[in-house]
Each structure stands twice: as structure tokens, then as C-alpha cells.
């Protein structure tokens, strides 16, 4: 499969539970090696979508392929890793036993498995407590053990469902670092998270889902989708000048002494600065920033926030 190939692809994937439609129309494509964010409010169908991709649920309609195979294909599953939300396992087992069992389920055996277990225990910082039963672990330690089991087979795609849930700031940083390492190894990461800051810091691209439908796609790497927001303060603040700003951008709003507007390209900034100075205006502030993911989220989701 070529490096740029699509590793996850769904078309109009649907899933209902009785009369309730959990996933109405999921259509997405995830490219090999990208860190892909999957965003939406509670009850938007994110976890159900993830289960459909993993073959844990059968779709009620639509089609999908993961690593070129139909959803749930056993061989494809040997090439993926999965960390469920609130990872939980038989709490009588130690982290080492947990990883041994999951490694065996992945088809690993002997010294290869033992070496991989040791590497991962060190990586998720559980080496010192590896033989303690999971029931003695904190929530964060359990989550890190879960992350280790998801990486045992050096997967081509890792599905992470709220991976930083229950983790302290150090644990979150560890997860971010591991995601960056996976990016370096060319692993595709499918990240389902509520923590928009985490997503913004790690993802290349995100898709928003609302009421079980993909409603918007946004690139976070390279050129910003939707342009940039400019905030400027100058004097004197005359209406005629504000009206002329329309040749540089759109959505111009005035709030007391400040002007906010949207520009399509960062290259507009020097032109705008020259124009303001050329008009003999005193420029006190001129800032350009991308729209934050949280702003995107609010703008896309609008008032549709299902309780949950």
C-alpha cells in the first residue's frame, strides 16, 4: 500500500439501536501516517463510530474499510491497536500479565513478546509496578497500562478513545509524546477526545460529528482552513477607514477601540500594515491568529449540545 494511501474509509456508515440512531451518516477518509482528530459533543456518536471501525458493532447500513479490508476483518485487526475510553481489565492481573495476554492475542510469543513488554512498561513508566495487580493501580496508571497494550503489536493504526481521561498533567504529556513518536514512525492515530487543547496540539486534521453525521473537516497542519483572525487597534478610528478594510478581509466587527476581521491568507498582513501606516494612522496593535479549535467547535456545533 503506498505511503499516502487512505487507511480508513467509510461511506454513509449508519448504526441504530432500536429506534435510536447513534450514527446517521459517517463518511470520512483517514490517510496513512496522519494524526486524525474525531470531535463532537457528548452523544454525537463518536464512540459508536469507533466501535463500528473496530468491528465491535455491525453497521446498520453503509460501508467501510480499514487498512483495505472490510470492517472487523481479523487480519486487519492484527495491524491495529485500540485503547478504549476508561480502560478496564481483569484487576487480578499485573501489568506484565495483562501485556503478556494481549501480546499472545496479537500472535506474539517468546523473547519477542518479553522484549516488547519490557520496552512498553518502561515507555509508559510502569516498570517499577509491573508485578502489582491492576486493582492497586490509580486510574492514570491503569490508563497507561491500557495504552501499552494498544501498542504491543507496533500497529499501523492506533485508535485512542479519550486517551488522557483520568491522567494528570504529566500523564497527558506522556500521551502527547507517545503520539508524536507514533507520528515519527508513520503510524496513523485516530484520536477521539473531548480535550480540544490536546487535539489542537497533536492532530493534523480533525472531523466534527454532530448527531451521528460528519459535518465539517478541518486541517490543523500547514495552511489554516477558514483563514486567520486579525485584531487591530489604530487611531483615529474613523468609519471611512473601517469601511475600506473590506478590501483586505471579511467579517469586520468593531468593539470599542478594536477592529476584528478575517483574512484568507497570512500574506495579507504586511499589505494591511503598510496601508494603515500609509494612511497616516497610528497603529498600536496588529495581531493575527488562527481560529482556535474551541471557537471552531462552538461555531460548528452551534446550539446542538446534547446532554450526556
Amino acid at each position, binding site marked *: 500500500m503506498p505511503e499516502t494511501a487512505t487507511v480508513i474509509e467509510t461511506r454513509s456508515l449508519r448504526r441504530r*439501536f432500536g429506534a435510536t440512531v447513534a450514527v446517521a451518516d459517517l463518511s470520512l477518509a483517514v490517510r496513512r501516517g496522519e494524526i486524525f482528530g474525531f470531535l463532537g459533543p457528548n452523544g454525537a456518536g463518536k464512540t459508536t463510530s469507533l*466501535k463500528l471501525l*473496530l*468491528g*465491535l*458493532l*455491525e453497521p446498520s447500513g453503509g460501508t467501510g474499510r480499514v487498512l483495505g479490508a472490510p470492517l472487523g476483518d*481479523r*487480519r486487519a*485487526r*492484527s495491524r*491495529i491497536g*485500540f485503547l*478504549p*475510553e*476508561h*480502560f*478496564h*481489565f*481483569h484487576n*487480578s*492481573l499485573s501489568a506484565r*500479565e495483562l501485556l503478556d*495476554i*494481549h501480546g*499472545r*492475542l*496479537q*500472535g506474539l510469543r517468546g523473547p519477542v513478546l518479553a522484549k516488547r513488554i519490557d520496552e512498553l512498561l518502561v515507555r509508559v513508566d510502569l516498570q517499577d509496578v509491573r508485578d502489582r495487580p491492576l486493582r492497586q493501580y490509580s486510574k492514570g496508571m491503569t490508563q497507561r497500562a*491500557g495504552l501499552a*497494550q494498544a501498542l504491543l503489536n507496533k500497529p499501523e493504526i492506533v485508535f485512542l478513545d479519550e486517551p488522557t481521561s483520568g491522567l494528570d498533567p504529566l500523564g497527558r504529556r506522556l500521551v502527547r509524546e507517545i503520539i508524536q513518536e507514533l507520528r515519527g514512525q508513520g503510524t496513523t492515530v485516530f484520536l477521539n477526545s473531548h480535550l480540544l487543547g490536546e487535539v489542537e496540539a497533536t492532530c493534523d486534521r480533525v472531523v466534527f460529528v454532530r448527531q451521528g453525521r460528519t459535518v465539517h473537516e478541518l486541517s490543523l497542519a500547514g495552511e489554516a482552513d477558514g483563514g486567520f483572525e486579525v485584531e487591530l487597534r489604530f487611531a483615529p478610528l474613523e468609519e471611512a477607514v473601517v469601511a475600506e478594510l473590506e478590501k483586505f478581509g471579511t467579517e469586520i466587527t468593531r468593539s470599542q477601540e478594536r477592529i476584528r476581521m478575517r483574512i484568507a491568507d497570512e500574506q495579507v498582513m504586511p499589505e494591511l500594515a503598510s496601508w494603515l501606516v500609509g494612511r497616516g494612522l497610528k497603529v498600536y496593535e496588529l495581531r493575527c491568529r488562527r481560529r482556535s479549535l474551541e471557537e471552531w467547535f462552538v461555531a460548528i456545533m452551534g446550539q446542538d449540545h446534547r446532554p450526556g
Partner: protein
Amino acid sequence: MMHGALTIARLTWIDARRTRIALAAFIGGLVFLAVYGTAVFFMQHSVIAPRQAHLPPLVRQATVQVLTLVGLYVANFLTLATAVMLPVDSISGEIDSGVMQTVASKPVDRAGIVIGKWLAYLAMIAVYLLLVAGGVVLLVWGMTGFLQPNLIGALPLMLLSAVVMVTLSIAGGTRFTTVTNGIAVFAFYAIAFIGGWIEQIGVRLGSSAARYIGTVISLISPSDALWRRAAHELQPPLLEQLNISPFSAVDVPSVAMVAWGVGFVIVTLLAALRTFQKRAL
């Protein structure tokens, strides 16, 4: 599929033997053996030994034989209860807690998950049966000198009866919640027990309708019929004909019923595999 099933069996074995249910069953078995041993001791030293000179050998043997059957009956009941309780939470509980999602996302067939669990619990139940039934036989042998004959014929039937319950418990877990499953499987056992009595009463009273109903119930839930067949194997023909034992069956379940016991396990296991294959996790 077998690699996955064996790994699941290993996981189930490791986890189940560390659970409180397994510990409770083990302690319950030991307590039973202690109480039973005490009862046998007093029977031997207070009832049988003082009257040894006056009791005909046949009556003495019959007394000890019935005492052994009582012990094996309780051992059988404990094994059946353990066969229900040990796996009752295994599949439904793991689905509820999310453990199953992690396991089923691995490259293992869902059939392998069910079969692995079934194999592990089958092994555990076999060990448990050997512990309690073997304990009963050894206690009686050690205290009275009576060694229960034909264990080779009876123990596999008792094991098959327990395997019926293990299979039902696992199959129920693929469809129902833990509590619903536990109630349903115990109800199944209770129905089998009552069905056995209806059949026996029907034969004694010459009611073909009662006998027919009892047989149909035994076909639906064969665990009690298998115990009655095991009890028949354990008793010498004379004792059974004298009808002095509460375990004397007037209508001994046939070999065909034993074969159906095996068939019942296979059919139930296949139904469990089919249900779990489609189950939303």
C-alpha cells in the same frame, strides 16, 4: 482460532482462580467435606461399629453406600452451583465493564473467545468435582473401609451434568445481563429437578402423562437426569431393587438421554457462538 481460544482459556483460568467466587466455592467445598467427614465419623463410631456384630453385612454395606450417595449428591449439587456461578459474570460482566471490547478488538475470533472461556471453566469444574466427590469417597473409604465402586462410570456423568450448567451459564452470558443469566440458569436447574421428580412419581403411580412430562422436561434441561443416571451407576442392583435409597431411580434415564446430554452441550454451545458473533460490544 485455537491459539486465540487457548490464550482466552489461559486468561480465564488465571483470573477465575483468583476471584472470590472460586475461593468461596473452594472454601465451601472444604467446609462441606469437614462437616461430611464429621457425620461419617459419628455414623461409623456411634451407629455402625457398636452394632457391627448384629448387623448383617448387606445392611451394613447398604447403610454406608447410602451415606456415600448422600455425600456425592451434595458434591454434585455444589459442583452444579459452582458451574453456574463461576462463569455467570464472565461474558456479560466483561461486556458491561468494557474488558470485552479490548479483547475482541484483537485478531481473535469471537468463537475463540467463547470456546476459550468454556474450556477454562470446564477444566475448573472438573478439578472441583474431583476435589469434592473424590473427598467424599476418600473420607468414607478411610473411615469405614468402603470404597465406592463404579466411579469410572458415574463421575463422567456427574461431570457432564456440570458441563451442561457451565455451557448454559456461558450461553446465557452472551445474551443476558449477569443477574438475569444467573436467575435463568438456576431456574433451568430447578425445572430439571422438578421434572425428574414428576417422572419418578409418574412411573410409581403408573401415570404415563406425568412420565411423559418429566421426560420432556429432562430433554429441555438434562442435568438432573444425568445425576439420576450417575446415581444408578453408583448403586449395586440389589440396593436399587430394594428401593431403600432415596437415590433409587424407578425409571433410570437411558443411554440415549446421556447422549442427548452431550448433544445438549453441543447445541447450546453452538447457539452461544452464534449469539456472541452478532452481539454488539
